[in-house]
């Protein structure tokens, strides 16, 4: 059960990672002309079309992560403590904090993408998108490191 949930959590996280990375790249380096290269097309997506998907995937991923965290806390963390993987535990704890704060930013993120906004709100939109992108990437990478810590030889 835990393994199935972990795989599902990972798949949802992958989808979220793709959606928010597309949006962040499109908003950060918008393309003025018709793209021809792969990178250009990656940058040229309609960035506002990802907003609802990002919100739904973030919440779904956080809920699944919250459930998987029960198994992690009971079965994995004690082993990491016994083997003195303090840095891995610390980085994972930071991930928990970031994910919680990121989830609270979703309403403001969603609102900032809903309408044509003035310049001041536009900077909030960019900042919130970049912050959420960082949180998602950090959570994804640290989740994988914690999951595969013995394979890293740490």
């Amino acid at each position, binding site marked *: 059960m835990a393994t199935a949930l972990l795989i599902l959590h990972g798949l949802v996280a992958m989808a979220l990672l793709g959606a928010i990375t597309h949006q962040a790249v499109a908003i950060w380096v918008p393309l003025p002309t018709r793209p021809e290269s792969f990178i250009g097309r990656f940058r040229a997506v309609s960035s506002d079309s990802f907003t609802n998907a990002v919100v739904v995937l973030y919440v779904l991923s956080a809920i699944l992560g*919250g459930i998987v*965290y*029960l198994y992690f*806390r*009971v079965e994995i*963390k*004690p082993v990491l403590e016994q083997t*003195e993987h*303090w*840095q891995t*535990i*610390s*980085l994972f*704890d*930071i991930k*928990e*904090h*970031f994910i*919680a*704060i990121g989830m*609270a*930013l979703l*309403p*403001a993120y*969603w*609102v900032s993408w809903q309408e044509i906004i003035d310049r*001041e*709100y536009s*900077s*909030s939109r960019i*900042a*919130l998108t970049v*912050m959420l992108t960082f949180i998602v990437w950090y959570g994804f990478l640290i989740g994988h490191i914690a999951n595969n810590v013995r394979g890293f030889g740490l």
Partner: protein
Amino acid sequence: MNASHAFRRFAFAFGPAFAVTYVSAFKQDIAMFTVYPTRLLSFKTTQYMQDVTSANGLPAMHWYGWMATAALGAIIIGVFAILIPDRWLPWIWQGWVWLIPLVAMLMCVYFTLPMLRN
């Protein structure tokens, strides 16, 4: 004030308020409830092993409780933000919506540093 305008205010207050209350709850260990995984029971407020003997000696989990504490505080502040008079709005910088959570995230890292240095 229409519903979308009120929700906009709520949303822009909720994120920073949650970040502040979350860091406070984390630092002061103020969890609205504690979860014991095996018993799937939760108790009011932060509790430790010496307070309540967990079945099989398994851990007390506070993260969910910290989030609940922060959410409650943020909802209260968010509702308060809806009630703020319009004439006050020009004095409130929109950048707080991302700057406060950013500082909160850095504080979370700072509070975790002692364990990270081990």
